[in-house]
């Protein structure tokens, strides 16, 4: 499968060339254009029960789409994400990565979407009771709003909750106040996430709360 991420950091999209017999699973509604001969079927996101939990607790959709190439030729498929921003690819090799709700875009066969208990702290931080853990062997594409930046953590790092996109599953997340009581509520930072451990986190360089904070005061 040939896969190219195009469109830059502002409006990234995924350009796939599916070889005969290949298939890819995508977030529902991610397809923007495709060769007419490709077969698309909606699939329940995992088992019925876990799909249910994923939708209502994990912030993901109940259904995902599966595109298969049952012809004898290479066929093209382009995928997009709803937010303006960058798309990235991860090669999972028996590894796993945790994604924030809404970040999943597409994955090749061999990659499974799992749901894990994230804890009450995550719920308080408005990130849901469960987290999406993607594991297996294959390619995973994910995206978010803004540019995606990687940070190596060895020890601790504080990340604004609305900027966190992906992180190594070995890392521990804790929710805490940004500063003192006064600062946390009047300083606009509120709750932040404290990431602990050794590994990588991916953050987005913009957040929807930043956007609304800029636009809303100007609207009447």
């Amino acid at each position: 499968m040939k896969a190219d991420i195009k469109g830059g950091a502002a409006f990234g999209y995924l350009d796939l060339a599916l070889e005969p017999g290949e298939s890819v699973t995508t977030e529902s509604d991610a397809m923007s254009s495709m060769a007419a001969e490709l077969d698309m079927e909606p699939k329940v996101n995992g088992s019925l029960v876990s799909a249910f939990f994923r939708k209502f607790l994990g912030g993901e959709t109940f259904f995902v789409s599966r595109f298969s190439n049952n012809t004898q030729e290479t066929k093209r498929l382009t995928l997009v994400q709803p937010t303006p921003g960058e798309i990235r690819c991860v090669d999972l090799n028996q590894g796993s990565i945790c994604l924030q709700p809404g970040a999943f875009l597409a994955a090749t066969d061999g990659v499974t979407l799992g749901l894990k208990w994230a804890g009450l702290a995550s719920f308080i931080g408005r990130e849901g009771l469960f987290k999406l853990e993607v594991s297996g062997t294959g390619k995973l594409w994910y995206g978010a709003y803004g540019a995606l930046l990687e940070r190596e953590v060895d020890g601790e790092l504080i990340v604004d909750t609305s900027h966190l996109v992906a992180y190594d599953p070995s890392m521990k997340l804790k929710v805490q106040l940004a500063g003192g009581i006064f600062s946390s509520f009047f300083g606009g930072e509120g709750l932040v996430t404290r990431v602990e451990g050794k590994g990588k986190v991916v953050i987005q360089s913009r957040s929807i709360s930043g956007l609304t904070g800029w636009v809303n005061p100007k609207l009447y």
Partner: protein
Amino acid sequence: MSFTQYRVVLTGVLNPGVTQEQAIEAIAQLFNTQPERVSQAFTQAPIAIKKDVDLPTAQRIQNALSQSGVMVDIQTMEGEAVSSGQPQDVSIKGDQQTSKGSDELQRYDMPGLQFSIEGRPDYAFLTVQLPKNETLKVEASAMATMDTHIVMKTKIKGGLGRLLTSESLFINEFTAENGPGEIGIAPGTPGDLAHVHLNNETIYLQNSAFVASSSSVITETKWQGLAKGFFSGESLFLIRCSGNGDLWFNTYGGIIMLDVDGDYVVDTGNIVAFTEGLDYDITKVGGYKSLFFSGEGFVCRFKGKGKVWIQTRNVGAFLHWVEPFRPVESSSSDD
């Protein structure tokens, strides 16, 4: 003020495995010029091949050329070396397939705090290295990442003035206690970031442009006057930044820095910042007919000598575009 201009100097040195023909080809392509002119330049190397550009532009040229194996130096116009040879590899790699090395801006030898800007120009993100006990002033709710030993305090800045601007009333102060630390700052608007180092100088910012500054920079809210403020379509206030230290501000869209000498007209919605010493008036572009029918409305006319930073998008225009599609009566959630 550190609006230093830079030049890109062709050293004549090539990476191993790159022939002069290939190098000439690459340069000719980049500058859209005849290969003959480039090969002539090579015989005179070292020679400046680009003059009077800002640092990001110079670095972009350096990056582009180094990919074709051509080594260039960046110097100030006075000939002071800024960076030479291989540009610093500041891109974030790892197992990611996209890297944005050439979009990144790292500072070399200027005074002030160490910082880097990533994600330019669409979603610029500022990372500042704070030395021990140093304090950084940051626009409220713009902090995205920080080391755990950085302590945040909220201050009410600018008194009543800031209450009246649509900008949030609070500026947060981040202090690196018990050792140096790193803080990542994400502005709210989609767009670029600019940095200036103030050296006992004063710069005026449009009221939502402030991102961060060193603690030594004084930020005050300044009343524009009713007529100027009202007709400008922007806020009635500007933020006056003065003193010594670093200042970062953001734009909606791209950023253009202009040297003004004489009169210059800018659409009021596109002004981001300007230096003290420039006088300005809010006027109409043409007669009353064009005021109402041309769609240009009021503009800002600058007079004098100084710098003006403008943004390539206008928030008013954006709101006009979005407004018809907004649901009525819905309360906008800020989650």
